[in-house]
């Protein structure tokens, strides 16, 4: 630290010629910028254009048509319902798991964290596919329940809300657990000890001292899960079997089954605006979460 301070003068001087603006940065950021403009910004602008064009003029016709389509409204409803329920499951179970991990010995803790990280990296398709095996009518869960005599006929887990939520929560959970765990281990143990020495019960310490300090991290990771749920495509398509269409599945229909590019564009723009708005909130929450640490 001291050495850093003593060299601060020359370092600051050394950074001087480095801030020459775009001209100096262009050789580095330029190549990627070309790719992003051509391969991403261009296509996005193209669909913005598509969403507002109808019969050669610009209008809101496509958006009006969407608003008047009962299917679209039902799909929006599905998307919100599945998103809220999935996020709730992820938040409650994820919090409990993250909390438990902090109480483990270092060795066990590393094993459990490694398991969480591995599941996070395994392909979404693989993790979705497994639920067909586990939740199917002849699957692990139903056969166990039948064998135990808890039920007489198999429960339909697949191709409905329940299956989609089970599959999606499983995929999103590591995204909540890892940042939440990181925030939990930063909670100052002395605060908890102080509360205990003042005679607070375990329950009071948790709710009044520990939990409030983890709220920013919880809020920001919940927002991240919400963002990812809204546009989720693969899992609802497989585990919903077309019966729980979400926004992304509707886009698939408007592109691949009944091509209506202008409607697909309008739906994409609605989803894009929602995602961007939520992402702004996420950024603020994330700043709040990291600000609390400092």
């Amino acid at each position, binding site marked *: 630290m001291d050495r850093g301070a003593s060299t601060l003068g020359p*370092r600051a001087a*050394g950074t001087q010629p480095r*801030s020459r*603006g*775009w001209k100096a940065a*262009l*050789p*580095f*950021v330029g190549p*990627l910028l070309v790719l*992003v403009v051509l*391969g*991403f910004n261009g*296509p*996005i602008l*193209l*669909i913005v254009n598509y969403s507002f064009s109808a019969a050669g003029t610009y209008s809101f016709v496509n958006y009006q048509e969407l608003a008047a389509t009962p299917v679209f409204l039902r799909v929006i409803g599905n998307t919100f319902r599945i998103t809220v329920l999935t996020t709730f499951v992820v938040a409650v*179970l994820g919090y*409990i*798991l993250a*909390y*438990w991990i902090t*109480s483990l010995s270092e060795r066990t803790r590393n094993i*459990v964290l490694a*398991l969480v990280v*591995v599941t996070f*990296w*395994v*392909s*979404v*398709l*693989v993790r*979705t*596919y*497994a*639920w*067909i*095996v586990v939740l199917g009518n*002849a699957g*692990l869960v139903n*056969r166990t329940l039948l064998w135990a005599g808890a039920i007489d006929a198999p429960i339909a887990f697949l191709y409905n809300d329940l299956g989609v939520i089970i599959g999606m929560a*499983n995929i999103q*959970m590591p995204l909540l657990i890892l940042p939440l765990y990181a925030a939990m281990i930063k909670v100052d143990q002395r605060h*908890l000890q102080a509360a205990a020495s003042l005679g607070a019960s*375990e329950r009071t310490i948790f709710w009044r001292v520990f939990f409030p300090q983890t709220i920013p991290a919880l809020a920001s990771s919940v927002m991240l899960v919400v963002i*990812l749920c*809204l546009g989720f*495509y*693969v899992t609802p*398509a*497989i585990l919903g079997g077309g019966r729980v269409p979400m926004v*992304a599945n509707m886009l*698939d229909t408007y*592109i691949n089954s009944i091509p209506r*590019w202008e409607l697909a*564009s309008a739906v*994409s723009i609605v*989803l*894009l605006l929602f*995602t961007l708005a939520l992402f702004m909130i996420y950024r603020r929450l994330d700043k709040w979460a990291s600000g609390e640490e400092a």
Partner: protein
Amino acid sequence: MNPSPATRFLAILTLTYLILPILVVVPMSFSSASSLSFPPPGLSLRWYRSFFESEAWLDAMVMSLALATISSTLGVILGSLAAYGLRRRNFNLKNVLEGNFMAPVILPSIITAVALYIALGRIGMLGTLTGLVVAHTLLVVPYVIVVMVVAIKSFDIRLEQVAWTMGASWFTTVRRVVIPLLAPNIAAAWIFAFVHSFDEVVVTSFIAGTYETIPKKMFSELILEISPTITSVASLLIGFTILCLMTAIWIQRLGKVSAAR
């Protein structure tokens, strides 16, 4: 603070739920039965044989490997350069530019899929390798930037300045100082990019046309009709992912050890 027995029980249950897909798929892939029942009635390698004897699956694997190799290499070159520019240069609208580079992973991939489908369709490039490479490169670049920005941040700028003052050209500084020191991070970024490209399914399914990749073929089979061969594919993917992850971690650790010396 110790969690109550109820909390502990719920946590272990949640952990089981989290890893259940992996716990189920791997044993299933060694099943001797052609039905998807768990636990498997007997053990065999027939589903692995059926994968390695299927020309369609092998073609898809070759395609996936080729696409991931090209895209992650391009992604690492463009992403590392950009990360260096973002970290070491100051210019207007830098944050906007960084946000723009990250946008393909912030937005749901279905939006990118629709936009690219329509754009490529307009210029007649749907189902082309170029279209796929552009899409995959865009989608892996953000991961490269995240890894490289952190790496460059912890990289002492004075090492570059020393090379500078000793009269090394900008190019020599990068080639002889920056790249060797960042090599472990570059390798790790490449592996992360490779895995992401290899697993990409949404955009690929929309724009690949007649090209088949492993995830694309898996996805369409899962929607239409499920054959047990998928179980062996899934298990191979799990093994492959864990291998890549361990290699990336090992390389980064190796880099830290050699840097400490």
